[in-house]
């Protein structure tokens, strides 16, 4: 493990960290000194991110983990303990591959719901249960990657907004439930560049300028540089008196919380 940084000596498991925002969070957390368990549905993606962390002098363990599989979640937690001897924080970042697919609410069916909820909500329940004894032992924290869409709703991404809103409810209730044991639970709602958004930019070159113009700071956040430091803060000692909060990191785009 890295010996410097606010998270030195601690272990963080990040779900969905094989790419996109999860990768950025993993890099930032590792940069803050944490040993990072890179839990990714696609094992090769997790290996790549872990190698990137180690290439920077950090410590990482790639773990194949489809969060819709309870056994794989338990195995990822077990591997974290076996490798690093402790688990201080869990970042539940994984979200459905259909998160950014525009959907008509009238056409939504049960399968679509389960696709979204299985990753965002059911997996959150399972991750929380699996990690709970270790988080209690470490007096650590659970950080949930939610979204401004969960605060404001979305006409075009109704299921995404629904599950992200649900995560905020879980954060608030779990913060109250686990607070007495010294475990903090917070949410982070970013506006960040993702592979899906990069693809959208390629297909629609005007989109980037349009989105930037809607954001007071004039750009879409970078997962590692803009969102990652807030995740480090929420996991770190500076946030030791914060729990049950959702922090919106959106360049000022969303101010309604």
């Amino acid at each position, binding site marked *: 493990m890295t010996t410097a940084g606010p998270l030195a000596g601690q272990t963080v498991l990040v779900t969905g960290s094989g790419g996109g925002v999860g990768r950025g969070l993993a890099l930032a957390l590792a940069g803050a000194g944490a040993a990072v368990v890179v839990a990714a549905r696609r094992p090769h993606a997790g290996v790549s991110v872990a190698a990137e962390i180690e290439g920077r002098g950090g410590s990482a363990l790639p773990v194949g983990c489809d969060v819709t599989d*309870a056994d794989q979640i338990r195995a990822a937690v077990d591997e974290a303990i076996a490798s690093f001897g402790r688990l201080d924080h869990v970042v539940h970042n994984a979200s459905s591959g259909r998160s950014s697919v525009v959907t008509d609410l009238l056409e939504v069916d049960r399968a679509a*719901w389960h696709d979204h*909820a299985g990753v965002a909500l059911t997996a959150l*329940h399972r991750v929380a249960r699996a990690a709970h004894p270790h988080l209690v032992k470490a007096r650590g924290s659970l950080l949930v990657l939610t979204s401004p869409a969960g605060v404001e*709703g979305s006409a075009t991404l109704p299921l995404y907004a629904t599950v992200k*809103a649900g995560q905020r*409810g879980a954060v608030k*209730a779990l913060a109250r439930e686990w607070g007495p044991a010294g475990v903090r639970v917070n949410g982070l709602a970013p506006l960040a560049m993702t592979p899906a958004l990069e693809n959208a930019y390629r297909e629609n070159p005007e989109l980037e300028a349009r989105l930037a113009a809607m954001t007071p700071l004039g750009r879409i956040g970078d997962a590692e540089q803009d969102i990652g430091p807030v995740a480090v803060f929420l996991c770190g000692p500076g946030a030791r008196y914060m729990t049950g909060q959702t922090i919106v990191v959106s360049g000022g785009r969303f101010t309604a919380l």
Partner: protein
Amino acid sequence: VRAETAWSTWSAVVVGGRDTPRSPAARLAEALRRRHVAVEDVREPEPDELAAGCARAAQHAPLRAFVHAHVPAGVVVPTPLVELDDSGWTRVVDESVLAMLTTLQAARRCAEPGATVLVVVPAVGLVGTAGYVASATAGEAQRGLAKSAARAWRSAGISVNVLAAEPADLAPSDEVSVRGNTLSPRGMGDDDGHDRLVDAAMVLLSPDGASTTGVTLVADGGATMLP
């Protein structure tokens, strides 16, 4: 007088079963009937039952209100998350949201412009309550879904609002234990006999409130005061 006249010119569908006269759906249906609204009860939020309920309601008068007050078993029963297995979680979270989704879709298909959809959810999600993680998740997910529907359907003249109620008001019963730190100890309103859930619902369903959409009204006697 104007509002009383308007109430009597439309019909409503109330979803949520009528197991007991004290269930939220039963109390809301009764309140609407007192205002001379033609009400059709739908016990389960199933597509066929909802379509039939809509058709029956529309025979009486224009269908202008849908109330979703379906509260799955387990929503009002406090359980620590680590003791809640997959089936318990699914029974609260997935069933709550899917039931609401079914009602919303049925309402959108048969609603007329100017119609209002009101969804009753547990208030425990607003500020969080220990022992109610699944219920809080379900309640906030339902609020997110309602906001999304409100955004999607406002151009069609359909409003969607939320009423957040205490567990004790959703299932008034001696079995509802008050373990959380945000729960009001009393159910079914205050000492003066008013039913706070019903009172607040009538505000959102009022003909004068048809242009309000995407809002959440908290009917908990002031226990929760949002920023």
